[in-house]
C-alpha cells in the first residue's frame, strides 16, 4: 500500500472522518460536511495560515488547543472540535479584528452580495464592533493595471493574490509592502500588475479589494444569470461560467475543472466577452455593391449565393476558416462542402498551423498525461502567448512535481526556465536538430544548447512515457520543417503521445471533423473507405483539395469562383496579407460569415451575420480532443444565425436537404459517420456527470468523467448552482443524474510512420547570411486580432510589435541605446523597436505578429523558404 492510498481516521465534532496523509484538516473536514470558515485557504494555493479564521480546537498533549485548520495536516486519531464555544469565540474574535479596519462600504462594493467576508461575518462573526477608533485610510481605489483595481482599505491581507502571482503565474508583480498596521498590497512604482493572469486574483479575492475594470459597477451578483460554458479564445478549452445581466455578458468566472483549467482563466479569455457586445457586430446580411454595403434579407442573400454555387464547378468552390465555430457548425459545413457541393478545398487553418495529418493520425495525449509524462518535449510557440492555461499547468507540474522538459525552440520562451535542457536552432533546421537528437551529426553553427545532455535525457526515459507538444512557432517559414521534426520525434519515440499546440479556438475540433483538406469527419482520411459517409452523404470530393494557401494561390489564377470565409479575417490573420488581398479581388463570389466587421469584410460580395459566443448552444473540442459544451445565455444579436443553420438554409436554397433540424440531429449523424465520436452525444455532454467534457475517442481507459468538486465554497458561491448547459431536449432521451450513458468507441488511430505521410523537404538548407537576417514571426497573446481589438479593455493592452536580435546582431546593425530599426523584406519595409535577446542565434531576428495592423505580415511571403530581411538603424 502506498502512502497516498493509506487512509487515516480522525474525529471531527464526534464524527469519524476518513482522510489521506498530507491532507489539510480543513479539507478533510469539508469532505465530511463540516465547513470551517476561511479566507486565506485556497485548495489550489500553498497554505500559509495567515488569516486565522479557521481556528479550531485540536487535541494535543496539553488537551485541546486552538490551531489553524488550513495549516495542519491530518494525523491518525486526531480529535477536532470546530463548533465549541472556544472555537466560536476565536473565530468571532478574528472576524472582529479583520473588520476593525474594513471600511464596510458594501453598498458600493462589487463584491457585495457574493462576499466571503460578508457571508462569514453573518455566520460566524460578531454583530457589533467595539472598534471606535479611526480606521486606516488609503487612496481608493488605485488601478494596479488596466484590468484590475486595488482598494487597500478593503483588503484583509489574506495573501491569496500574492501567492497566486508568485507561485502559480510565476510573476510576483504584487507583494505586501510595509509592516503591521501599515501592511498593504502594492506593485512596484511604475511597474503595473501586467500579468496575463491578473483577472484570477480578482476572482479569488475574498473581499472587494481586487475588482476588475470591465465588471466594475456593471451589475449586482444577485441579478446575474449564468450558464456553464467553455472558453474558445484559445484551444485549451477552459471551463467557465458565463454571467449576464440584461442580455449582456458582464463577466466570466473560471470553474475548477481538474482535467483542464483548474479554476484559472487567462485575461484574454476572461475579458474577451466585450467583443460579443461590440459595436462592430454585423446586424444583418449585406451585399457589397458599388455604392457600398447594402443591407438585405436572408432569403435574397442565400438565393444569390445558391445561384453562384450552382453555376460553379465543385473544385472551384472553397471554404477557409471555421476554427472558431462549434463542432455542430463545423460538421454541417463540412457536409455541405464535401458531401453536397463536392469540394475538398476546405481549410480551417490560415497557414498558421500544422499539417492535419500530425494532429489527426498520432496518438493523442491529454493535458493530464502531458503533466505526468516522464519527459515532455516542447516544440511549439511560447505557450504563455498561445495557450496560456496550458503554460500554467506545465509550469506548475515542473515546479511542484518535477516534470522534466526538453525544449526545442527558436528562442527563449516562458517555459525555458523550467526546462531541463533547451535546444535552439536556426530557422528551417528543426528536422536536422531532431535527427541530431537521435545521434546524427549536426552543424554546430546552426544550433545552440547542450545536445549531449538532451540526448542523455531522451535516452534515459521510456519512449512510451514521452509526450510531445507540437505547434507552429514561426509563421515566416514553411511549416514543413517543424512538421517533419515533430513527426520524426513521434515516430522515433515509439509509443510517445502528441498534445496539439494548435491555438485557434476549435481548430482541433475542425481537424477531428474533417474541416481540412484530405480528411472527413472522425480523423479519417478522404481515401480510406468512408462507407458510413457514402450512406449519409450525397457525394464525396473526387479530388484531394487545397489548403488555405493553395486556395488563395489558385484564386490568383482565376480557378476559384466561390469562396466562403467562416469567421476568417484573411487580411488580418493570414500570414501573407498581400497574397490574401490580391486573391480576394480575383474571386467573383466571396461570402463572409462572421460576427464582427473586420478588414476582410469590405472584400466580401455577401456578408452574413453569425451568432457569437454565448448566443447559441453547441460544443467545442480542445487540444486534447475533449468535447465540452458551449452555453447559451444571450438572445442572438439582431438577425444573426448560428453557422450550422446558415449551412442548412443555404443547402435548402440549392434544393438539397442536409437533414438537420436541431443539434441532436447533427450529433446523431456525427455518431454514425465518425468512429471517433461514437458513443458521444450532446445529450451526454449536457449530463450532470460530464462536467469536464469528454475526451474522444471514448475508450474504457480514457473516459474521464467526474463530478466537479466545489473548489472554493466561500467565494463565487453561485457557481455550484449553475444549470447544466445542454441544448433544449428534443426527442433524444437525456441521461439522468450521474454518469452519462456511453458506449465504447472502436476508433483507433491509423498511425503508421507519420514522417512517410509528409512531403519531402527538398529545399536548399540555408544557414546564416552575412547581411540578411532570417525572420522569425511568432504569435503573442494580445495581438491586433479583431477579437482583441473589439474588446474595449483588451484593446488598450495591445502594444506595438517588437523585435529581438542576438547581441551580435545588435552590434552588426550598429544599434546603440535606441533599438529603432527598419526591416526590409519581400518588397516591403517596416520600422519597429528591437531589443537584445541573448537566447537568439546570430543572424536571426524574431518579430511579434501584429494581426490586423498588417505591417509585419508584409515582410514575408509564404513561398516555403526561410524569409530573410535586411535591417538598418533608423
Amino acid at each position: 500500500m502506498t502512502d497516498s492510498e493509506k487512509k487515516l481516521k480522525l474525529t471531527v465534532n464526534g464524527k469519524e472522518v476518513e482522510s489521506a496523509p498530507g491532507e489539510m484538516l480543513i479539507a478533510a473536514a469539508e469532505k465530511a460536511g463540516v465547513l470551517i470558515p476561511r479566507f486565506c485557504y485556497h485548495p489550489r494555493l500553498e497554505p500559509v495560515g495567515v488569516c486565522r479564521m479557521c481556528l479550531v480546537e485540536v487535541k494535543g498533549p496539553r488537551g485541546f488547543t486552538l490551531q489553524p485548520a488550513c495549516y495542519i495536516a491530518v494525523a491518525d486519531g486526531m480529535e477536532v472540535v470546530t463548533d465549541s464555544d472556544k472555537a466560536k469565540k476565536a473565530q468571532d474574535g478574528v472576524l472582529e479584528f479583520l473588520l476593525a479596519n474594513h471600511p464596510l462600504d458594501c453598498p458600493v462594493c462589487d463584491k457585495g452580495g457574493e462576499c466571503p467576508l460578508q457571508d462569514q461575518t453573518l455566520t460566524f462573526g460578531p454583530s457589533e464592533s467595539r472598534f471606535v477608533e479611526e480606521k486606516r485610510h488609503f487612496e481608493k481605489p488605485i488601478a494596479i493595471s488596466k484590468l484590475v483595481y486595488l482598494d487597500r482599505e478593503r483588503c484583509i491581507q489574506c495573501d491569496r493574490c500574492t501567492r497566486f502571482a508568485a507561485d502559480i503565474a510565476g510573476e510576483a508583480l504584487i507583494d505586501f509592502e510595509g509592516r503591521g498596521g501599515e501592511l498593504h498590497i502594492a506593485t512596484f512604482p511604475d511597474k503595473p500588475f501586467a500579468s496575463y493572469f491578473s483577472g484570477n486574483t480578482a476572482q479569488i479575492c475574498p473581499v472587494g479589494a481586487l475588482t476588475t475594470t470591465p465588471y466594475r459597477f456593471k451589475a449586482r451578483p444577485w441579478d446575474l444569470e449564468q450558464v456553464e460554458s467553455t472558453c474558445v479564445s484559445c484551444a485549451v478549452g477552459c471551463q467557465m461560467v458565463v454571467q449576464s445581466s440584461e442580455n449582456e455578458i458582464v463577466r466570466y468566472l473560471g470553474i475548477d475543472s481538474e482535467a483542464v483549467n483548474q479554476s484559472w482563466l487567462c485575461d484574454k479569455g476572461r475579458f474577451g466577452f466585450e467583443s460579443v457586445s461590440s459595436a462592430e457586430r454585423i446586424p444583418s446580411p449585406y451585399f457589397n455593391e458599388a455604392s457600398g454595403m447594402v443591407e438585405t434579407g436572408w432569403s435574397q442573400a442565400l438565393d444569390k449565393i445558391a445561384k453562384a454555387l450552382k453555376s460553379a464547378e465543385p473544385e472551384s468552390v472553397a471554404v477557409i476558416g471555421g476554427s472558431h465555430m462549434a463542432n455542430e457548425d463545423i460538421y454541417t459545413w463540412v457536409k455541405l462542402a464535401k458531401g453536397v457541393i463536392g469540394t475538398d478545398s476546405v481549410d480551417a487553418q490560415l497557414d498558421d498551423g500544422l499539417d492535419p495529418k500530425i494532429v489527426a493520425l498520432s496518438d493523442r495525449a491529454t493535458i493530464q498525461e502531458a503533466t505526468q509524462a516522464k519527459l515532455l518535449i516542447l516544440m511549439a510557440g511560447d505557450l504563455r502567448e498561445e495557450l496560456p492555461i496550458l503554460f500554467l499547468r506545465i509550469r506548475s507540474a515542473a515546479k511542484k512535481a518535477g516534470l522534466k522538459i526538453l525544449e526545442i525552440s527558436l528562442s527563449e520562451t516562458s517555459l525555458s526556465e523550467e526546462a531541463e535542457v533547451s535546444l535552439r536552432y536556426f530557422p528551417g533546421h528543426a528536422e536536422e536538430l531532431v535527427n541530431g537528437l537521435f545521434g546524427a551529426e549536426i552543424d554546430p553553427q546552426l544550433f545552440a544548447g547542450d545536445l549531449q545532455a538532451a540526448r542523455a535525457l531522451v535516452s534515459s526515459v521510456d519512449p512510451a512515457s514521452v509526450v510531445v507538444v507540437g505547434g507552429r512557432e514561426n509563421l515566416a517559414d514553411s511549416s514543413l520543417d517543424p512538421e517533419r521534426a515533430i513527426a520524426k520525434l513521434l515516430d522515433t519515440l515509439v509509443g510517445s503521445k502528441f498534445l496539439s499546440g494548435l491555438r485557434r479556438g476549435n481548430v482541433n475540433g475542425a481537424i477531428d471533423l474533417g474541416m481540412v483538406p484530405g480528411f472527413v469527419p472522425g480523423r479519417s482520411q478522404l481515401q480510406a473507405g468512408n462507407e458510413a459517409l457514402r450512406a449519409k452523404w450525397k457525394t464525396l470530393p473526387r479530388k484531394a483539395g487545397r489548403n488555405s494557401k493553395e486556395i488563395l494561390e489558385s484564386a490568383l489564377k482565376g480557378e476559384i469562383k466561390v469562396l466562403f470565409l467562416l469567421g476568417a479575417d484573411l487580411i488580418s490573420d493570414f500570414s501573407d496579407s498581400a497574397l490574401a488581398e490580391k486573391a480576394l479581388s480575383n474571386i467573383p463570389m466571396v461570402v463572409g460569415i462572421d460576427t464582427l466587421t473586420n478588414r476582410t469584410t469590405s472584400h466580401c460580395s455577401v456578408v452574413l451575420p453569425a451568432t457569437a459566443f454565448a448566443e447559441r448552444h453547441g460544443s467545442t473540442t480542445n487540444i486534447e480532443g475533449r468535447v465540452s459544451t458551449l452555453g447559451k445565455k444571450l438572445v442572438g444579436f439582431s438577425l444573426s444565425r448560428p453557422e450550422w443553420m446558415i449551412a442548412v438554409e443555404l443547402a435548402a436554397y440549392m434544393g438539397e436537404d442536409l437533414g438537420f433540424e436541431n443539434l441532436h440531429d447533427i450529433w446523431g449523424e456525427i455518431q454514425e459517420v465518425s468512429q471517433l465520436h461514437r458513443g458521444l452525444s450532446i445529450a451526454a455532454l449536457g449530463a450532470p456527470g460530464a462536467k469536464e467534457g469528454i475526451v474522444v475517442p471514448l475508450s474504457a481507459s480514457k473516459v474521464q468523467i467526474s463530478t466537479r468538486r466545489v473548489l472554493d465554497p466561500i467565494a463565487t458561491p453561485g457557481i455550484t448552482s449553475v444549470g447544466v448547459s445542454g441544448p433544449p431536449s428534443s426527442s433524444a432521451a437525456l441521461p439522468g443524474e450521474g454518469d452519462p450513458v456511453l458506449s465504447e468507441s472502436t476508433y483507433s488511430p491509423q498511425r503508421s510512420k507519420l514522417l512517410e505521410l509528409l512531403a519531402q523537404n527538398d529545399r536548399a538548407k540555408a544557414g546564416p547570411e552575412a547581411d540578411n537576417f532570417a525572420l522569425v514571426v511568432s504569435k503573442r497573446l494580445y495581438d491586433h486580432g479583431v477579437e482583441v481589438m473589439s474588446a474595449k479593455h483588451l484593446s488598450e493592452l495591445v502594444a506595438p510589435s517588437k523585435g529581438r536580435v542576438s547581441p551580435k546582431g545588435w552590434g552588426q546593425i550598429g544599434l546603440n541605446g535606441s533599438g529603432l530599426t527598419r526591416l526590409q523584406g519581400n518588397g516591403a519595409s517596416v520600422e519597429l523597436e528591437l531589443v537584445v535577446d541573448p537566447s537568439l542565434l546570430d543572424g536571426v531576428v524574431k518579430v511579434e505578429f501584429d494581426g490586423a495592423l498588417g505591417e509585419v505580415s508584409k515582410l514575408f511571403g509564404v513561398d516555403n523558404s526561410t524569409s530573410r530581411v535586411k535591417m538598418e538603424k533608423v
Partner: protein
Amino acid sequence: MSRFTKEMETRAYELLALYPEKRSATIPLCHLAQEQNGYLTEESMVQIADLVGTTPAEVLGAASFYDMLHTEPVGKYVVGVCTNIACLLQGGEELLGHAEEKLGIATGATTDDGMFTLEDMECIAHCDHAPALQVNYRFFGPLTNDGFDTLVDDLSAGKLESEVPPHGTLSRVQRKHPIAVPLEEIVRHRRDSDAKEGERLAAKAAAEAKEGSN
C-alpha cells in the same frame, strides 16, 4: 548615480557568492545600495531584483518591512531617539520633543539641508544609558538637551566623521578573506543532513507502520 557603481557591483557579486540561494542576498544587497546612495532608490531595487532573481515588487516588499532600510531619501545622519519604556521613564519623549525643536522638523522628516532625519525608535538596547539615541545606528547616551545640541553641532561641523559614517554605511571594515567554509562544503553538509533527516523520518515511519500492523 543610483545603480551600483563598478566597485559596488564587484562587492554585490561577492555578497551573492556567499549564499547557496541567491535570494538570500536580498537584504545584504539592500544595505549595500544604501551604503552607496544613503537610501534605497527605485533603480537600485530593480537592479537588486535582477541580481537575486526576484521581482522589484518583492524587493520593495522585503525592504519596506525593515526599519533600517529606507525607500525614501533620508539625511546624511538619521537620528533615532528611543521612546521605549526605559528611555521614556528617563525623559525620552522630552528629548524627542527637544530634538524636533532643535532641528526644526517633525519626527519622520528631514532637514532642508539634507543633514538630519529624525525618527522615534523602539528599544535600541542601550537602556543603561537612557535616554539614548542612535545616529546612523551608533549609540549616544545618556543625553540631556544640551548634550543633544552639542552632538548635533559636532555632527554638523564634521567633528564626528570618524565615529559616524554617512547613513547607509554599516561598517567601514570590509571582509578581506573568502568565507572560511567553502560553499561546496556547505551545500554538501546541507545535503547530508537532509538525507539523514530523511532516513530518520523513513525509519520512524517504518517503525510506526510495523507497530500499526502488529
